[in-house]
């Protein structure tokens, strides 16, 4: 594989990152995707749009999010100096809102009064419902029936915010099926509906657009680390379902070769069990949901059901740019099991007074493994992409506590 001069120039005009990405959608959606691309290009060049974004991020989302030195966690592990990028402090409790703000402002520019979204853990659904409430837009969220059951607090939040939550019972009743159903809605309601995709996947321009909106995480981290330590971090680590929080952190650092990049997929019950959601570790390139990327599937090309304790990582694919970073070797992808994530969830709660969501608990699990092997002057940033309030009922049940 040729190593490019820059890792930050993709995708090409057809939405390709190497062989990954593209626009694999039904003809009905093709004109909509082309319209979206034009509208996004126009918006990017418009100072009014930029100003509206900046104001929203500052006054509504609460940015910048802090870069916090996790002192007791660092001491406990006895190696690398660990910083948390505190995306869980954003309004709505995760990084998802960064992207949703960008897309909702775009939907307003395009004159689309109806917003649809898919959601796994419910964080993207909550962020979408929130901004639809803020701007008076109709909101329909598709969520797998299994996820509706295990993320009850977020379902209630979305309904409080005025969104309609549609439980999806087809297939495995999780995130991939929610995405199928959202695409079916979009193909049916082409004239008034904007599809707000929650991650760096889907047909072009979504992977690039969502990455752009999330890149504020990495840009802030860069400035904050320079201010705190006078230099760039030595490593970045983030969990990956579709991979938007990770891409947001990674992208501004891709051309800094001194910065080591780790992505953490969900290993579920362990890769050998076959019950996991680690597309890069356990999958191969294929085509689903509008893009070519690494996918979990069988030998006939039938998509496999992913498994993870975390509803937000329970997806058999991954954003195409991650697939490309994997193949080029710029980023290293590892995985954490359900049990490792649960352990990290509890440890970080006790040591730092921060209850992480089960999703970033996967990244924290690998920090627990990696940090002790690294020198004390190694600066490591972990993206604390969401807070764990939504996971309390599920974790309590697993730990055998009745609440």
């Amino acid at each position, binding site marked *: 594989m040729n190593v490019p001069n820059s890792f930050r120039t993709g995708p090409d005009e057809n939405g390709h990152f190497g062989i990954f990405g593209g*626009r694999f959608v039904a003809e009905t959606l093709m004109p909509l995707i082309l319209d979206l691309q034009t509208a996004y290009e126009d918006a990017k060049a418009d100072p009014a749009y930029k100003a509206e974004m900046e104001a929203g991020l500052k006054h509504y989302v609460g940015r910048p999010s802090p870069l916090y030195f996790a002192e007791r966690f660092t001491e406990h592990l006895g190696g690398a100096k660990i910083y948390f990028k505190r995306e869980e402090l954003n309004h709505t409790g995760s990084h998802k809102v960064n992207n949703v703000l960008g897309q909702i402002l775009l939907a307003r520019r395009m004159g689309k009064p109806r917003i649809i979204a898919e959601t796994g853990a419910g964080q993207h659904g909550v962020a979408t419902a929130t901004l639809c409430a803020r701007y008076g837009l109709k909101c329909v969220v598709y969520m797998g029936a299994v996820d509706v059951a295990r993320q009850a607090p977020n379902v209630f939040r979305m309904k409080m915010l005025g969104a309609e939550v549609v439980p999806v019972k087809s297939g495995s009743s999780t995130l991939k099926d929610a995405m*199928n159903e959202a695409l079916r809605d979009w193909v049916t309601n*082409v004239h008034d509906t904007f599809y707000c995709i929650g991650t760096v996947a889907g047909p072009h321009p979504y992977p690039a657009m969502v990455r752009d909106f999330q890149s504020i995480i990495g840009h802030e981290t860069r400035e904050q680390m320079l201010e705190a330590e006078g230099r760039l971090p030595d490593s970045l680590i983030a969990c990956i379902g579709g991979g938007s929080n990770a891409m947001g952190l990674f992208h501004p650092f891709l051309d800094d070769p001194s910065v080591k990049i780790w992505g953490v997929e969900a290993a579920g019950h362990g890769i050998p069990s076959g019950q996991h959601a680690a597309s890069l570790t356990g999958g191969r390139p294929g085509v689903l949901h509008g893009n070519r990327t690494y996918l979990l599937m069988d030998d006939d090309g039938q998509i496999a059901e992913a498994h993870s304790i975390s509803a937000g990582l329970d997806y058999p694919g991954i954003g195409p740019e991650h697939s490309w970073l994997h193949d080029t070797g710029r980023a290293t992808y590892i995985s954490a099991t359900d049990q490792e994530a649960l352990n990290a969830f509890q440890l970080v709660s006790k040591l730092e007074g921060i209850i992480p969501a089960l999703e970033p608990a996967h990244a924290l699990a690998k920090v627990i493994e990696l940090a002790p092997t690294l020198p004390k002057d190694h600066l490591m940033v972990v993206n604390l992409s969401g807070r764990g309030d939504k996971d309390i009922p599920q974790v309590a049940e697993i730990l055998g506590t009745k609440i």
Partner: protein
Amino acid sequence: MSPRFEARFKACAAEGRAALVTFITAGDPDRETSLALLKALPAAGADIIELGVPFTDPMADGPAIQAAGLRALKAGQTLAKTIEMVREFRKDDATTPLVLMGYYNPVYIYGVDRFLKDAKEAGVDGLVVVDLPPEEDGELCLPALKAGLAFIRLATPTTDDKRLPAVLANTAGFVYYVSIAGITGAATPDADRVKQAVARIKRHTTLPVAVGFGVKTPTQAAEIAGGADGVVVGSALIDALRATLGEGDTATPATVPAVTSLVSALAQAVRGARRAAAE
């Protein structure tokens, strides 16, 4: 390019009528029943056959075809077995055009070149691959044309005049007009609007235009047939099939006849359509 399409559309036109295009899912509810049904379709009045390739995530399909695909997969259907079904079908039928319809991933994993070779040899005439728009022609459309298989494109209500030439550029066999913005088997198309849309497409191409998505009854089929070269019926056949299934979605003696009798009724309606219009 696959002479079977041309011959069949010409024959239908000579009878002053549209072609009836029937869709079933390969392997639904099991391989034997599905093969028996496939073989029975031409005699029941199907002019062209679309054989659905099951996929776990059929984004453009409604509940009926989604369920059919899952039944087939559960019974062990694969793309290789579907191609094998076509080979069996061709032993008795050398003239009915047959189209494989599905999604790209199973083909991509099978291997494009190997797939085109095997499909062509088995007697497949054309392909409809829902998630390959003209923007991705390099993937399968151009290699298929080179291999002598028609790549049948979907044109939809959102395909405007500006975009139509791109959609039609590498199309062969016929054009499949998707009569509604939506999924298969959902809303009912409006016959007058469909007629206008077909006329619009015909200003851009000499290929026959078949119309599908949402055509369920013989009456609807006749209406649509009045303004198109072909009418496609899928979900309604799948519904008829499903209604006969026993416990655990197993076939019963009623399964094949239920579908073929609906096909006969549809064929009769389509055959009557232009005659009625002419009288």
